[in-house]
């Protein structure tokens, strides 16, 4: 089975969020890029586990982005990916990114396409569904478990108010979240091997952006905390009722 894991780069979770150019661009100055946690901890590690159970699987990685994505693709190779593809276009339009991924999926004949639940910078949660629709494939979103039974994927996923166990024949797109696997760190052998694994750069398929980011803004600052003494909980209840008017 050919597995494609979609890897996006995202600022380190502790990175300071700031904007430049009159608040129209994210200030990436000095930012440490990491693999989007959902893509790494859940989608990629689960793919690696599937390959550990059945060595005939191939794990390819794709990242749509500029050269900043290469170190994180190397890290994903060090964790256990076999080959990486970078589509050389920097876009914040989901339709453009999905078009690139769908093109690679179609040309590469992948059976299982794994994405993370969402990117922690764009917070789109849309890429998986878009790729699936472009290729008219089924999509299982927010999976917490995934087993393969030949060409049938068995996935448990979160639904509003509960969980569901689904079965679907490949090819299929699945988005991964917490529960699917446990985070790993690459070992020395993996890091050495990654240096010589193929990382192919391909030019993007032509596609027009359907959206454009106009500006960013920061949420309004908090006024500051009002402290209540621990033996005055009634006062807190009063404040919540009369001042905040919520309980």
């Amino acid at each position, binding site marked *: 089975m050919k597995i494609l894991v979609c890897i996006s780069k995202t600022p380190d979770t502790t990175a300071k969020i700031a904007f430049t150019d009159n608040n129209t661009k994210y200030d990436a100055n000095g930012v440490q890029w990491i693999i989007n946690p959902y893509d790494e901890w859940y989608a990629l590690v689960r793919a690696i586990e599937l390959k550990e159970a059945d060595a005939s699987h191939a794990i390819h990685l794709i990242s749509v982005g500029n050269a900043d994505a290469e170190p994180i693709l190397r890290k994903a190779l060090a964790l256990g990916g076999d080959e990486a593809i970078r589509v050389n276009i920097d876009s914040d339009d989901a339709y453009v990114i999905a078009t690139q991924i769908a093109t690679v999926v179609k040309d590469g004949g992948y059976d299982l396409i794994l994405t993370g639940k969402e990117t922690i910078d764009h917070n789109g949660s849309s890429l998986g569904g878009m790729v699936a629709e472009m290729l008219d494939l089924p999509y299982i979103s927010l999976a917490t478990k995934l087993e393969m039974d030949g060409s049938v994927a068995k996935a448990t996923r979160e639904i509003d108010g509960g969980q569901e166990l689904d079965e679907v024949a490949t090819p299929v797109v699945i988005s991964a979240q917490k529960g699917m696997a446990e985070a790993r760190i690459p070992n020395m052998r993996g890091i050495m091997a990654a240096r010589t694994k193929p990382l192919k750069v391909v030019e993007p398929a032509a596609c027009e952006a359907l959206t454009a980011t106009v500006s960013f803004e920061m949420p309004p600052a908090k006024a500051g*905390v009002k402290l209540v003494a621990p033996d005055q909980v009634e006062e807190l209840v009063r404040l919540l009722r009369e001042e905040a008017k919520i309980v």
Partner: protein
Amino acid sequence: MILIYADNINGTIKKSSLEVITYGVAIGKQLGTEAQAIVVGAVNSDLSELGKYGVSTVHQLTGPDTFDAQAFSKLIADKATELDASVVVFSHSLMGKALAARVSVRLKAGLVTGAVALPDTTSGFVVKKSVFSGKAFANIRIQTPVKVISLNPNAYTVAVGEGEANVMATPVSIQPAVKVISNSKSSGDRTLTESEIVVSAGRGMKGPENWGMIEELADVLQAGLACSRPVADAHWRPHHEHVGQTGVAIAPNLYIAIGISGAIQHLAGVNRSKVIVVINKDPEAPFFKAADYGIVGDAFEVVPKLTAALKAGA
């Protein structure tokens, strides 16, 4: 016209659906066009009542008894095309997310997910959405004639008025590729993202055996339960309660954080809450900087007292 997809869970129209209907109707007013709703599957309430939220017509596609994103998106996109909808809105719920993405591709419509406010239509069509896991907002221009938006739960207040919608039921059948083998409901009726009040606790609670007092506080407030990541990692609490940058992102009216330090990754999932109360024995805990109200004290003493005070005042 504006087409609004109203989610239902097992036949019940959700609060987030009413939010999205109110929101879609308001967009219609902005653009000077009417809003209609679409519901897929059987519903155990009278759909004409959705007229109270401002929709003139409800299109009900009867037949499908389980949700299937691939099949439902075709139905919704076809309806949008038939009705010549200029904006299609969804709730950014678990089901809504999957549909919005697929429908936007079918309609080749620009998509903004996780919207937090009405679009700005003074120059073009610009939608504000939450980005960087709640740490910032982005204003996104949709450049296509047809637009698709998914609205964050709890971002828009439901408005009820008078009115009765015209319900048009059409039977449809679908052949889902995905086979649902089984499903189970998790405890509690409210999903975490829909809860107006959330009581959350962290490692300061020492162990799962101490969650009784957290549950009691949540009960008096009819609140949803959440926890920090290490708590879910240690299996003290189920995974779906984990909030934060790598867990669920929530925006309740009130978030009560007990024994949680307030790490940046935790705050990322909760900082859109309207009011934050922090109970922590360490006055230096970073969470106090993000809080509206705080008590510096031992949770084991404060929480039962708070529960009692809320009960007494009720």
